[in-house]
């Protein structure tokens, strides 16, 4: 009843708290702290962390970098999209635009690459399947992260941020080859 009546004690603040609640609050607080510590812990000991490296950019500027890489390392084409094989350890670029991920990348297994991602127009979602790595690609920002593919095969980049009527057409590919 007193959930919707004024508390029965004027000085409710000094009413002692029951043991059950104290115990539960203690347990819950410990769990909260464990969860909090897990994130910095993973930054130090875990292998899946995003870098804090990002730059403001413009579509034209970023496009130029992508084109440069494509011109230098193109090895083929698939459905009109160039396939690019940059050297292991290098900077590789991919862009999202309505409605395409460009270009197709061919990477070597267990090699690290500095992957740059940006959008030419609206927000896009970089969703690498079936690995299930998901990143937000924001226009005007160039995200850089070091990625080390440790499985080989064909991987698809699905766009998972709504980007208009052709959203479902927007796919990209990353091939990872055994070396």
């Amino acid at each position, binding site marked *: 009843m007193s959930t919707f009546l004024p508390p029965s004690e004027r000085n409710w603040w000094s009413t002692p708290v029951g043991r059950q*609640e104290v115990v539960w609050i203690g347990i819950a607080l410990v769990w909260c702290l464990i969860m909090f510590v*897990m994130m910095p812990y993973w*930054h130090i000991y875990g*292998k899946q962390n995003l870098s804090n490296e990002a730059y403001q950019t413009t579509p034209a500027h970023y496009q130029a970098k992508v084109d440069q890489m494509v011109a230098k390392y193109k090895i083929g084409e698939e459905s009109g999209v160039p396939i690019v094989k940059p050297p292991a350890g290098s900077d590789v670029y991919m862009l999202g635009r309505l409605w395409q991920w460009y270009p197709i990348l061919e990477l070597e297994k267990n090699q690290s690459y500095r992957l740059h991602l940006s959008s030419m127009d609206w927000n896009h979602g970089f969703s690498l399947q079936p690995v299930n790595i998901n990143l937000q690609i924001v226009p005007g920002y160039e995200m850089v992260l070091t990625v*080390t593919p*440790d499985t080989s095969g064909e991987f698809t980049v699905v766009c998972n941020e709504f980007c208009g009527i052709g959203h479902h057409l927007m796919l990209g590919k990353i091939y990872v080859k055994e070396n």
Partner: protein
Amino acid sequence: MAQFRVCPDSGFFFDKSAESLMKANAVAGAVSLLIAGILALGVILTRWQEVHLLPADLFYQVLTAHGINALIFWIIFFEIAVLYFASSTLLRTRLAAPRWAWAGFALMIVGMVMNNIAVWQGNSSVMMTSYAPMQAAPHFYLGLILFAVGALIGCFVFLGTLVIARDDRTYEGSIPLVTFGALTACIIAIFTIASGAIILVPTFLWSIGYIGHIDAAMYRVIWWAMGHSSQQINVAAHVSIWYLIVGVLFNARPMSEKVSRSAFLLYILFLQLASAHHILVDPGISSEWKVFNTSYAMYLAVLASMIHGLTVPGSMEVAQRAKGYTKGMFEWLRKAPWGNPVFSGFFLSLIIFGFIGGITGVVMGTEQINIIIHNTIYVPAHFHATVAVGTTLTFMALTYLLIPVLFRRALFLPWMARWQPYVFSAGMTLMILFMLGAGTLGVSRRHWDMDFTGAMLSFEYPGTAYTMMAVAGIGGVLGVLGGAMYLIVTVGSLLFGKKLDESAGLFQGFGVPLAASSYNIIQPERLPMAPKLAVEEHGSAGFEAPGTFALAMALLLCFVVYYFINWDYLSSVWPLS
């Protein structure tokens, strides 16, 4: 001169103008829910790939309107009604500035209609989040702004009513816990609307050409300061309603005023940081910022929810045990009124909100784990557990209480009302669990075609993902059916329900008095403090509510196991740094 009536069944006092406003806001909310529910059917039947009902353009349009009507209009209209109830009715006082409250209501209606029109016209299919630089029609943003201004007026009417009650000394001691919770919701709402103004006003100016550029990353950070905080209004509101329902149904008292109120205070202090949940995999935002904000500064708001998770059912258990339901751990729960939709709706929403909504929310809000979840259909699965079951089902349960008390009508088709919470929560739970599964397999949210028909490249999801989306579709349809049952009972009660004493019809409620004899100008008597109880210990070892404690430990166990399963899953994806 304020006029009051007293509800002969519940003893609640209603100020005439507050009463009309509550009815108007609740009805407007129900209309929004009706729209949202019909649209929900379009969404779920399209995502069910074997059915794939709507064409792409209509799907995105319907999805945009579904989100806005459900998440903004239905919930906020209802919350304004709750604010007026928690202030005017619970404190037995007249409502401050009823004309302003009506003006606010009118603005909200205009905003809602304007925004819906913008979406129907077809060039504002930008999703609820309307991420710049994708642009909607100007009246899309203007509608939201007007709606928010109206809601803000409602918040100030609520605060003004608290001031009047205090000045007129209509209650002894401190405000009741339920009102305290509503005050929490109101404070968070003001923060939310301020954030909304900061982002939506420039976006509106941009849409009409006065501002040249909206930074896409900034938009996301500030938009979510509104978008996520508004969900925290819901949490504060529905937790307050849980306390109200255990008070009304079981005569329960809070296990500890101090603990429950402190938990609400933690919401005010920390919930707003959750904007970060949505930008954990965005460029340009540092890990330190993400870790601090996404965890509400060391999970202190999660702590608050875990506290309410113990004290709400705990208060009920203590009250039930005092009535003699003391056998074993769970007689208090077994002998609860499971056939009463006020109870079943409340309890199911508590369980599903905590076990599914709460746990998945914290897991996907973990900085690194978000990498395997961001923008997959796991995300809407989570927020349907929190908002569509947690908040919406709680509001439904409260409606069953308010139909006789506020509208003075007997329930129409009581058998349907009895089944409604079960049908709705069973359907929604089925949908949510299988959407969580599909999200884990990488199925994306806000996506028309998981077959990618017509794309230059191709990709196939595993067959399991299709099965999961189909089962989710069946659950969703069942959930819509449960929603329809709610609206049939509600609208039917207002139109055809047996009139109870001192009643008047639905439409008379809009600013027109009920039967004149219902009201008098006598101030209701001052609200007394809750009766003191001798300190009693129930249960074993000084644990007043051992059954609840067992439930809480079960929750914690699920939480811990599921949390580390997700870390394990994360550790299997490609190394990133």
